[in-house]
């Protein structure tokens, strides 16, 4: 596969565009799912969509992908509202409700699918691509549908941006301000369901939840600002789509869906480790630095104790007498000296007045601490 194939090869171009769009919309809407603590909703909905697909086929008898999408949308929405109903009306918790809807709807869908397979009208071939997803079956029409849905959801997000943001971070307050939280809730949920349903055909039922979560979870690590997060997530999603398609096209037997998911997972991993604010690497470095500072302060405090016993605070002491206290090294002593808190001459140290004062105020709660 060459780079120019992306522009000349019709199939590849379609698939790349489709997966990029899908990644973008999933990232965008997934941000809301993640922040609303509905991460596993995607998993449940993607399974719950199956009976809708089967029923739509049973009722209409044709395999028109838009009709099937409508069926998926309807049953996905029913599943979502049942989940909400179970959580609200019974003592069952959301994880149980999610698992219930997921498995029960999917099982019912399987029943219908196998029932369809037995029908004389053997038009059903290809329905199972919704289970595992086949990006290769994307055609230009599907990409158009995706583009339109992405556009519409973008517009809706922009229109209701303030309200949705408020709803995310303080639902109760939003209510007291007089916004119709129920409407907002249904609005954003409906669009999440829509995104999931769109992705079924491309990456399949199981991998859909990762498509929704991974870009958002990665983006979350880089920023605390909602708009940046949504933008970044859309970007990550789109990139995962493009890279995943490219990698899977470069070799035989690499299904597109799983590769996209793994690329997205790699984004998450990189973000977990390398993001400057929250990442594990920088966090570890920060911890280490804090630990060192703490050690220095402990040494200083210990010196302060010794210096207190002398009238002259800058009376020199042997470094040796610090030995029964473990918190110092050559380097930390050097650091303390650099800060002008102590003076070192050969094997002797002495406190400077500045160091003495610093140690005095260190544990006093009333002095403002410098970070």
């Amino acid at each position, binding site marked *: 596969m060459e780079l120019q194939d992306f522009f000349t090869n019709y199939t590849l171009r379609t698939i790349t565009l489709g997966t990029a769009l899908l990644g973008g919309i999933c990232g965008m809407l997934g941000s809301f799912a993640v922040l609303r603590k509905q991460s596993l909703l995607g998993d449940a909905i993607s399974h719950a969509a199956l009976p809708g697909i089967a029923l739509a086929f049973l009722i209409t008898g044709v395999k028109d992908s838009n009709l099937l999408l409508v069926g998926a949308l309807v049953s996905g929405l029913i599943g979502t509202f049942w989940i909400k109903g179970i959580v609200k009306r019974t003592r069952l918790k959301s994880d149980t409700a999610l698992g219930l809807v997921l498995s029960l709807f999917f099982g019912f869908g399987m029943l219908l699918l196998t029932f369809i397979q*037995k029908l004389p009208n053997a038009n059903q071939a290809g329905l199972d691509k919704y289970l595992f997803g086949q990006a290769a079956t994307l055609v230009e029409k599907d990409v158009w549908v995706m583009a339109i849905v992405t556009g519409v959801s973008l517009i809706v997000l922009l229109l209701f941006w303030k309200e949705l943001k408020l709803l995310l971070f303080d639902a109760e307050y939003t209510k007291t301000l007089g916004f119709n939280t129920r409407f907002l809730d249904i609005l954003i949920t409906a669009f999440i369901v829509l995104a999931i349903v769109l992705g079924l055909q491309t990456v399949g039922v199981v991998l859909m939840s990762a498509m929704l979560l991974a870009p958002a979870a990665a983006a979350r690590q880089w920023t605390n600002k909602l708009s940046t997060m949504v933008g970044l997530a859309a970007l990550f999603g789109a990139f995962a789509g493009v890279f995943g398609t490219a990698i899977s096209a470069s070799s035989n037997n690499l299904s597109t869906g799983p590769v996209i998911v793994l690329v997205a997972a790699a984004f998450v991993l990189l973000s*977990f480790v390398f993001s400057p604010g929250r990442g594990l690497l920088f966090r570890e470095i920060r911890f280490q630095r804090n630990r060192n500072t703490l050690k220095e302060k402990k040494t200083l405090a210990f010196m302060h104790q010794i210096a207190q016993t002398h009238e002259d605070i800058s009376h020199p002491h042997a470094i040796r007498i610090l030995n029964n206290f473990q918190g110092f090294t050559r380097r930390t002593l050097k650091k303390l000296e650099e800060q002008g808190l102590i003076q070192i001459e050969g094997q002797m140290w002495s406190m400077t007045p500045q160091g003495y004062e610093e140690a005095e105020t260190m544990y006093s709660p009333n002095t403002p601490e410098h970070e």
Partner: protein
Amino acid sequence: MSNAQIEIQLIAALVAIACALPGTFLVLRKMAMISDAISHSILPGIVLGFFLTQDLNSPWLILLAALSGVLTVFIVEQIQKTGLVKEDTAIGLVFPAFFSVGVLLIAQHANDVHLDIDAVLLGELAFAPFDRLYWGDMDLGPKSLWVISTILLGTLVLLITFFKELKLSTFDKGLATSLGFSPVLIHYGLMSMSSVTVVGAFDAVGAVLVVALIIAPAAAAYLLTDSLKTMLVLSSIFGVVAAVAGYWVAYALDASIAGSITTVLGLLFFLVYLFAPKRGVISVIYKEKRQSIEVSLLTFLLHLQNHSQEEERHVNHLQEHINWQRVRSKSVLDLALKNNLIQIDNQVVFLTPKGQEFTDEALRYITTNKETAIEELKDRFFLFRG
């Protein structure tokens, strides 16, 4: 009934019990979705096991698959510990990644074996009787029957041995820890057990039905009882009923057995969800409605007590004074009349002595904030409840 039919139903019933037992604890521990994650993330374990042994029936497969299930749980916990994302996000990230690895491994290397994803995800109970275990020349029955019986037996032994510990750590983690039980050990014990069960069961019924068999019976049972033991028994019964009934539905429709067992489970749960005596939706809605009327009634009585002018208490003006819909004011008036709390003379409402006493006491309870007493108070004064 043919032999094969009996065998299929037996396997299905045993799988149902083996799933319902750990399922009860998963539902109570709010970890139901872990079963979904495990059921998908065992895939790479199975594939790797197959590569190593080149034998789809090797016990190594079960072991490796269970191991990758436990590994998922472990990774989810590690991610969660970093505090970068919430637990459910961690679950949602890990298992699709595992599953993807499994799918790619299969596509790369195992295309020619019968290990295809459809079979793993969906399972086919109907084929179970064909894969039989022989000892010499003797037919010992279907292999999956042996596998699932062993797993069920193991589950039962563990469950009975560690019942106390499991119970305590499920309902009061803090107390369990302070009594010296290791919640981590029990947690991973339960997770390993669930993984093994999922692996043993999915071969017969597929990944998704395993999840249904784990969660749905336990969820239904939880709406019916408060006792752990009853819940374990009830969920096993639900599982078995669905397994057997589901088989016959599949037989009648000539459709997937796993799918119809799940569908029957779904119906069972739905019925319990609607009609469970205390916790079903209907009874909850009824209770909510009654409570809202009772609150309205109390508001109404307090209003009567606070206003001595006749016009404030005129039946026809009540609506505008307390701002209620017509229907609501009527049902509240009826309730108060029926219980002899008010009296209506010439369309003007008065509190009866009984109503006066009730209002006073209620007011006292409200101002001193003893909520528990209000139920008892209502029992004393009410003959009819709205």
